[in-house]
């Protein structure tokens, strides 16, 4: 059996008296799309934030390719090749597509200008952005320097996914990527997700949209009351099963629901 790319054991996160994560486990296998579903308040956002370095768990361990890691900030996780597409997209509307792609990891000119005048290598960044966008089948870009705010919702999402795919060498995390999109745009983003997977990068997909989850996911991690309730195979379960498990209306086989 292959070992997980990203693994968490016994994660605990408390906010005052509320326990958002209660000894939660998590496994992401190489090359898979793992969906994480759960009712509101089940703690899935907290889990994702812990995995992407946005929060620090009170207890528990995270392993990346078997090695224990601890992330003090999203930048630490990024440094390890874990990229997250946040629900808010984390883009600066007034800045260009290329600027946004490279925010926080800009390329400098080689030689004197770069070293002493810290001049950015715009050409290289634009080239790279253009290439990454078209690699993902994302549109013929006319102007990589147009501000992100002039793009439609679907295009913005596309740029955000492209950014994560371009730099996420190990794991890409997508938080509700289709929540704000129309039917057609969602379709495109789902195709994008599969294109990223086709390049061998495993994906964690958080979504409320059952049809989307069941369409693209290889396994579904069902989160309930701050921990992993079970992991199901979408081919062997129906959406109603999944909804029943995550709301507590039914208990999956082999799991003892606490009284």
């Amino acid at each position, binding site marked *: 059996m292959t070992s997980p790319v990203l693994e968490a054991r016994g994660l605990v996160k408390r906010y005052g008296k509320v326990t958002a994560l209660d000894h939660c486990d998590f496994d992401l296998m190489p090359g898979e799309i793992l969906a994480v579903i759960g009712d509101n308040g089940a703690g899935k956002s907290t889990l994702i934030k812990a995995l992407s370095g946005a929060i620090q768990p009170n207890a528990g361990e995270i392993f990346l390719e078997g090695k224990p890691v601890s992330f003090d900030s999203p930048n630490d996780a990024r440094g390890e090749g874990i990229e997250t597409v946040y629900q808010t*997209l984390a883009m600066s509307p007034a800045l260009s597509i290329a600027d946004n792609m490279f925010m*926080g990891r800009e390329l400098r000119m080689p030689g004197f200008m770069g070293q002493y005048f810290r001049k950015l290598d715009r050409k290289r960044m634009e080239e790279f952005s253009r290439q990454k966008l078209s690699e993902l089948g994302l549109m013929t870009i*006319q102007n990589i320097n147009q501000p992100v705010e002039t793009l439609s919702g679907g295009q913005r999402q596309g740029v955000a996914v492209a950014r994560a795919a371009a730099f996420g060498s190990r794991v890409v995390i997508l938080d509700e990527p289709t929540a704000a999109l129309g039917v057609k745009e969602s379709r495109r983003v789902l195709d994008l997700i599969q294109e990223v997977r086709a390049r061998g990068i495993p994906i964690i997909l958080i979504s409320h949209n059952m049809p989307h989850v069941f369409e693209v996911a290889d396994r579904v991690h069902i989160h309930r009351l701050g921990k992993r309730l079970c992991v199901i195979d979408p081919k062997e379960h129906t959406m109603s099963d999944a909804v029943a498990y995550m709301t507590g209306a039914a208990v999956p086989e082999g799991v003892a629901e606490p009284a």
Partner: protein
Amino acid sequence: MAEADRYEDVVRTRSDEKFAEFEDTGKGLWGRFHELLHTTPAIVPLIVLLAACVVFGLVLGSKFFSPFALTLILQQVQIVGVLAAAQALIILTAGIDLSVGAVAVLCSVIMGQVTFRYGVPAVLAVPIGLAFGTAIGAINGWLVSKVKLPPFIVTLGMWQIVLAVNYLYSANETIRAQDIEAQAPFLQFLGTKFNVGGAVFTLGVVLMLLLVLVLAYVLRSTAWGRHVYAVGDDPEAAQLAGVDRHKTIMSVYMLVGFICGLAGWVMIGRFGSVSPSATTGVIGNIQAITAVVIGGISLFGGRGSILGAFFGALIVGVFELGLRMAGADPQWTYLLIGVLIIAAVTVDQWIRKVTA
């Protein structure tokens, strides 16, 4: 997955049309103009500046359009120009700094007092003044970034504190120009004049021009500059995208404090003397904000350019000199500047709309 679950697939099979092309869909001349303004907002104040020059040129003729008069404008705006450059940086981060003028005055007082009270050589007194400016900026930045106080409140308080310290420390004593000239001419270094074919420049003017050009380069072409824009645009997004928000804000406020120190040095060059009651301490902040706003920098942060702020300062200078030469009541200047401020913000709102 059951057949019935694939209800959305119809969209995929029928979607022949391109999904997300970045195409210009014939916006026409007006749309293009809007787009140009959207990407280079400094054009508006530049147009106003040129128009004002043309109008005053036509009305006043060679009296206005002489190298002497035009460079006189530069000399008159040098203090406000430097302060506006500082203010522009803060406003780009969606902040505002009411203490810039007061800090400049305090720095000039420190430079003077350190020389005359403690006998420190002027060459050392200037860096000491600049260091104090930077330190005050650091306090502002720390309060804004770490304690998360609104910049308006922090700098409103700092403005009063700095002004009071300025009077208490200097005992409201002016250091006379003759004394400085005799004992510490380096303090007046930026007042040094040189002549290029009738045009009179001071080193203070040169400093202002260099400062604007350097800041324009840094904001446009370095990672730090991009981070300043990103933090002003949407701090949460910038943070998640990997920008160190605290570091960026601290560096901006400290740099602004330093630039205010430079403005203090420019003031000594311009006035010759060191006066704790210089009007810059009281109205410098408003003058700087005026220049920045007329220069098309958005008060909501993340939009605009330092060149715009410079043009804004020049516009005010052109109006002041032009109207005075035309013999108009100075109140007309204030009236027109008031109109310009409101017009500039209106234009900004329009530019910020994505589609015209």
